[in-house]
């Protein structure tokens, strides 16, 4: 059994003071450790938890997919990494440690502003909505450079052009364009360029291919993968589409009702899902070959902030493995093989297996001893 040690790799020497790092000497992919993160939203019904104590370790240099349906808390988690949860939301507990930055939840003011952009690049869901329609891409690039104290605008433009060209675009033309002159796929690449141009080593992509056509989506996913590798990034991709995550990520975290219910290597999670929710989600994907009758719908509907049960497992309403304990006790994440799973049934089965294996080992030892004696 391999363990996913939370402290693998990580700390690049002495953490540089926030806001000043990002030079060429500090190019190691950072690791991220989210611990017991709670984010609540103020509603007329009181404060409701969008994230109910999420712990997640993102290892340096990986592409991690965060998959979940609407209301699962995936976007809230991504925004928390930037300490950018907006009211009525509020981070009420927990920590987000990023190598080289420390606990971003303790950053504020200019330190936080510098960290975003220099350390953390964020590619927004609809790149067209994050670009200023009145300014050319080049002008926005220069604004970005100025606000982050980049002293050499020529170098910045040069970097931006080479990034755009790397992604198969005519760099000069794109920098001279307004956003309406670019197609959806081109805007998405501009978004990626703006996230990377200040040498951020942790990049978060929020639904980067939603609303793009299939072929454009495939192109963007290929680019994400290539750029990730070439620049040695830690990449986080938030998506509702498990297929998209399966195509590009190394590791996969599945979210449901404000919890990470399963997290592990993508191949393992897709190939042999453990959590009943992950199993249901994968079984509900229509495929291009094989028996269509094998695809099964997941019964019920995902919870919203208002319908989340106050105690017990958040998935129990839809769960085929529901037990009495699920009503009252929230399942803690348990390490099973190479992944963490938050499910009483899975943890119970593992416990049984461990007990059984121990019994077999003891039996073998006993037989061995008897043979030795004989």
């Amino acid at each position, binding site marked *: 059994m391999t363990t996913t040690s939370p402290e693998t790799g990580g700390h690049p020497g002495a953490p540089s003071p926030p806001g000043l790092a990002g030079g060429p000497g500090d190019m190691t992919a950072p690791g991220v450790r989210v611990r017991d993160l709670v984010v609540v939203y103020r509603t007329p019904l009181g404060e409701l938890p969008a994230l109910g104590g999420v712990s997640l370790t993102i290892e340096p240099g990986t592409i991690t997919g965060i998959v979940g349906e609407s209301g699962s808390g995936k976007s809230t988690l991504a925004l928390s990494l930037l300490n950018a949860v907006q009211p009525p939301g509020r981070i009420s507990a927990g920590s987000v440690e990023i190598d080289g930055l420390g606990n971003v939840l303790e950053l504020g003011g200019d330190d936080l502003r510098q960290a975003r952009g220099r350390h953390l690049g964020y590619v927004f869901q609809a790149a067209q909505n994050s670009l200023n329609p009145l300014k050319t891409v080049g002008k926005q690039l220069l604004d970005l450079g100025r606000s982050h104290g980049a002293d050499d605008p020529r170098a910045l433009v040069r970097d931006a052009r080479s990034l755009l060209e790397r992604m198969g675009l005519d760099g000069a033309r794109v920098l001279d364009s307004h956003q309406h002159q670019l*197609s959806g796929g081109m805007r998405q690449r501009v978004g990626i360029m703006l996230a990377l141009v200040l040498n951020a080593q942790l990049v978060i992509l929020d639904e980067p291919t939603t609303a793009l056509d299939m072929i454009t989506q*495939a192109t963007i996913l290929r680019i994400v993968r290539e750029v990730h590798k070439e620049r040695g990034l830690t990449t986080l991709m938030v998506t509702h589409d498990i*297929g998209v995550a399966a195509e590009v990520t190394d590791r996969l975290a599945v979210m449901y009702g404000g919890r990470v219910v399963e997290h592990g290597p993508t191949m393992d999670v*897709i190939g042999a899902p453990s959590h009943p929710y992950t199993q249901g*989600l994968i079984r509900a994907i229509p495929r*291009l070959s094989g028996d*269509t009758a094998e695809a099964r719908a997941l019964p019920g*509907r995902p919870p919203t902030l208002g319908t989340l049960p106050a105690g017990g497992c958040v998935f129990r309403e839809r769960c085929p493995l529901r037990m009495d304990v699920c009503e009252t006790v929230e399942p803690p994440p348990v390490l099973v093989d190479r992944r963490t799973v938050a499910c009483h049934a899975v943890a119970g089965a593992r416990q049984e297996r461990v007990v059984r294996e121990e019994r077999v080992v003891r039996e073998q030892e006993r037989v061995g001893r008897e043979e030795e004696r004989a």
Partner: protein
Amino acid sequence: MITGTGVTKTYKQRGDVLGGRTVQALRGVDFTVRKGGAVSFIGESGCGKTTLGRIIAGLETYDSGEIVINGVPMSALRPRRRQPYFRRIQLIHQDPYSALNPTRTIHQTLRAPLTLRARQTRRSDAWVDDRAEELLSLVGIDPGYVLGRYPHQLSGGMRQRVVIARALTVDPEMLVADESVSMIDVSMRLSVLALLKDLRERLGVSLVFITHDIATARYVGEDGELYVLYRGQVVERGGTEQVISAPEHPYTQSLLSAIPVLHGLEQPGPERVVPTEALDERHPDAGCLFARRCPFRTERCEAERPALRRGADASHERACFHAQRRSVIPVEAVA
């Protein structure tokens, strides 16, 4: 049964002072949807699939060509006389959030068309409420739960079921579902697709399924036909299973190759095709419409437009001079 021959549609785009450019949404499309059959139109945005769906549902005019419904050519009828034909073809919109009136309860939403129906068929008022409950049960929701509620109190999946129930109030012969699950949460999509499939089997309604997601088209219409549209032209058509497993047009192959691979369960197809450049609608119309992006193009492709022709199999047609079967879809991973 509905057939279309040579259906064309051109949109004028508003442009600058010198006038806009025109977009050919459909360039002479032929199609047939048999009674109880399933036909899927697939392609990228701008390929004309939505326009075609709206024309089939009688919600959009066309410039030339002919639509024949149950043997009656529509061009021979005045617009008012066409209505009874098109009423039996119901469109299910992409967005169940805007397709329902937010100020009406589900009961009110269903009662309006049912009351009309009751008057036409001389049925009693009691029938209206019974039928509303019956339809909701048919689409798999508890009438007691939804009838008194407003759309905002329902999930996306439930709303889409209500939209389908409303379409069924007129006893349609055909449903036209345009990207009908793309706005629904992933875990609930399959149940709506299963409903469409089930309605086809149980009520014998035919289904026109419009999507960019080929796997969902296969799920609802495995035994039906698949049409691949590119810039307003049908570039490949045939049995759904056949087009997916043995595509012959490089554009179909590109679309299938672009579908994400479920690593862990699948491996990429051995002959995946990647277009040489991105879609640009300003590409010239001369020759094959896909030539600029096609990795297999020759001089002939740039000079001449290939027509839809039969291949080895009579029911499988494609518009390509260099049609060749390639194995592009993911294959099961070896455990």
